[in-house]
């Protein structure tokens, strides 16, 4: 299971099957440069693999005023 927290909102989303960051972005209807994807304090590019047990933070970047 992969846990995904978006902009600090709780509860986090969980995904049983996600292979890559790009799949996650597609699932969240986000474009490649719409959000920072963070795992263990590291930024991930869309081609990076995700693994069961990963805790991912999604931080959208569009300023809203």
């Amino acid at each position, binding site marked *: 299971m992969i846990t995904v927290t978006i*902009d600090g909102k709780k509860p986090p989303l969980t995904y049983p099957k996600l292979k890559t960051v790009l799949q996650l972005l597609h699932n969240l209807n986000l*474009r490649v*440069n*719409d959000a*920072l994807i963070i795992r263990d304090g590291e*930024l991930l590019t869309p081609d990076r693999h995700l693994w069961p047990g990963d805790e991912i933070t999604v*931080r959208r*970047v*569009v300023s*809203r005023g």
Partner: protein
Amino acid sequence: MKCKRCGELAAVKLPSHHAGFCPTCFEVFFKRQVETAIRRHAMIKPGEKVLVAVSGGKDSLALMRVLSDLGHDVDGLHVHLGIPDSSDPVCERTESYCRENGFRLHVLRTAEVGLAIPEVKDSVHRPICAVCGKIKRHYFNRFAYENGYTALATGHNLDDEVARLFANTLRWDAKYLGTQGPTLPGEGRFVRKIKPLYRVTEFETAAYCFLKAINHWKAACPYSGGASFTGHKKLFADLEDRSPGQKTAFYEAFLAQGRPQFAGASRGEGQDTLYACTQCGFPSSGEVCGVCRVRELVAKRKGEVL
């Protein structure tokens, strides 16, 4: 994905540059983009002290950091808007960041000059974002002028500039199209306005903040719902997703080929002349400037006499 410069594992993918960068090389890339912007548009003179408009968000804090890292002498000005549950924590976070990083920060409280934004919101019949923007621009410029700064830097990035250009183009607003750009020269009581981040996107600024551990304010302004520029940004994000590089191409081509066509465009007969506001002395298109008029409306609503 490998870093385009050093071949290490990339942390940031930038389709518009056909590149990926590791954290170290991304910082080099980011600083070079800002250096190029400053050099090409004669933004900062050697030894000049720059006032940075600091909201506490990612763009303004990244701007303080990168200008300082590039060797420029920067101070910050934060305008506290007096919005409950928002302005105090934003101001505290900004002060904390500047204190920890050795930046001098000035704080101007709009409530102390009769312009607390919640009261302004209740006193005007226009979108509050437009009025708030006018008040902030007035005080950023005024503070810079009255305190001897000749350059005022704002954190507008490529997405902001493209959204604004798109809005001006939708209206074919010749006057604004003739003056929009990364540097607005100083004149009279207007100090020079510069946008050193105009070559980097919001994504790049956010990545820079993350990699530099800049703890910026992330929540939206409670009054900002429905701002039109956000919609324009979404349109351009779709375009950029299909054709990476379109935002830069649109904006740079405008600077090179579009803007000169509108240079010197008039706002309309009798509307280009600026006068000194009879209340604050700063440039105004009428006898009293827009900010002083708003202050009068707030005072009137509260039953005060100015």
